[in-house]
């Protein structure tokens, strides 16, 4: 794309990579947490629920700061993980972590709503046919909530594509490594006359996210039709 400079191009590719992995890795956790919140009654439930929503409520900068304190090289979790070779600080993986955490509440909510819409009577039917709980989940619940998972995943992806505050605070902006599209947009907006360049990048991210949304509509509708049984 001659339209984008090499640095912008690499920011786009990085944003895609970050958002993709943020979504893919956090989705299973999202499904698990959504299921726990939807179907189980346990003492820590309100706390878990609150925790999940925290990134939504907090200004992103605060989330980024908390991430830095926790997952930074000196942070309690970060230093532990560093011993097994997992480093987030200043890596694209950190950007993915930040994006994933910011997108998490959105995914969980979408998936949770779709789980709550599954008639427990069908799950009971699965149990009477000999399927243990986890397999009932895999064979009945999961396929039925697929549209919700797809919707939640794409929503998370879109959110991850737009995430900025937490990412830059946590992993800063290193061209080629952690400089995502929104960071680039932000940088352009800081200097007088940077608007056209920013606009160009904004259009790129809109196109990408809209593409994802359209895709999710199509895939989601097909999945829903499958579930509705037509």
């Amino acid at each position, binding site marked *: 794309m001659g339209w984008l400079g090499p640095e912008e191009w690499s920011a786009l590719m990085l944003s895609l990579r970050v958002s993709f992995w943020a979504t893919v890795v956090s989705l299973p956790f999202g499904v698990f947490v959504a299921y726990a919140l939807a179907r189980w009654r346990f003492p820590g439930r309100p706390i878990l629920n609150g925790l999940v929503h925290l990134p939504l409520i907090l200004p992103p*900068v605060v989330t*980024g*700061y908390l991430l*830095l*304190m926790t997952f*930074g*090289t*000196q*942070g309690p979790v970060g230093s532990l993980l560093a011993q097994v070779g997992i480093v987030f*600080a*200043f890596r694209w993986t950190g950007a993915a972590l930040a994006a994933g955490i910011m997108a998490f509440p959105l995914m969980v909510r979408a998936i949770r709503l779709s789980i709550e819409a599954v008639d427990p009577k069908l799950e009971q039917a699965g149990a009477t046919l000999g399927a243990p709980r986890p397999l009932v989940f895999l064979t009945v619940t999961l396929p039925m909530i697929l549209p919700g998972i797809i919707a939640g995943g794409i929503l998370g992806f879109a959110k991850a594509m737009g995430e*900025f*505050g937490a990412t*830059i*605070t946590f*992993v*800063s*902006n*290193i061209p080629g490594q*952690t400089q995502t599209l929104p*960071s680039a947009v*932000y*940088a*352009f*907006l*800081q*200097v*007088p006359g*940077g608007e056209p360049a920013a606009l160009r990048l904004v259009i790129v991210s809109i196109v990408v996210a809209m593409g994802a949304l359209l895709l999710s509509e199509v895939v989601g509708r097909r999945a829903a039709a499958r579930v509705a049984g037509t």
Partner: protein
Amino acid sequence: RASADEVLVFAAASLKTALDRIAAEFGAASGHEVTVSYAGSSVLARQIQLGAPAHLFLSANREWMDVLEADGRIDPGTRVDLLGNSLVLIGGPNADPVETMGPGFDLMARLGGGRLAMALVDAVPAGIYGKAALEHFGLWAKVKDSVAQTDNVRAALALVASGAAPLGIVYASDAMAEGRVQVIGRFPAGSHPPIVYPAAAIVNGPAAALEFLAFLQGDAAQDVFLEQGFTLPGE
């Protein structure tokens, strides 16, 4: 005395501590009420461009003031360079001081594979000045791939404070109150373009705005700024 007026000031966020105190003093002394909206200079400048009801603008850099001047949104006669600042190299609590900040300084060795935290080097003033200083000493080319850029200088400070980055370049005023970092070197004034915080009144403002602008240049106000680590322009 003229009736009490309300003055709305748009100011760079880094001025908050000092300006809050000065505005309170001015309010007590004059009877006018000063309200300050703190945000990034670029945001404020755009808002003023698009008709924000501000009366005074305190910018963290010259470019945005120039833009407003060109647009005719400020009264050029009132524009002053209100404050200055200096650039420092910071490190963790155990970092050794730099003996001579100059071309011979082996910044890469001091980073030891870690990152140098700075504000965005092409967009945010502190980053722009820092990059200029490093270029001045011929260090930029070597270090540029090790720089971690943040959206504002406070975030760069936080990277060093949290230990994520061993070194960072920030304003002296920022480094002052953070216990987890220490200044290990100072960039001489000549190594980068002068760091200036210009101030000006927006066109068609109330007289009280000019009064406050004058008050900002008075001794009482200047003392507060100095106390917060700012310098006076031209120093």
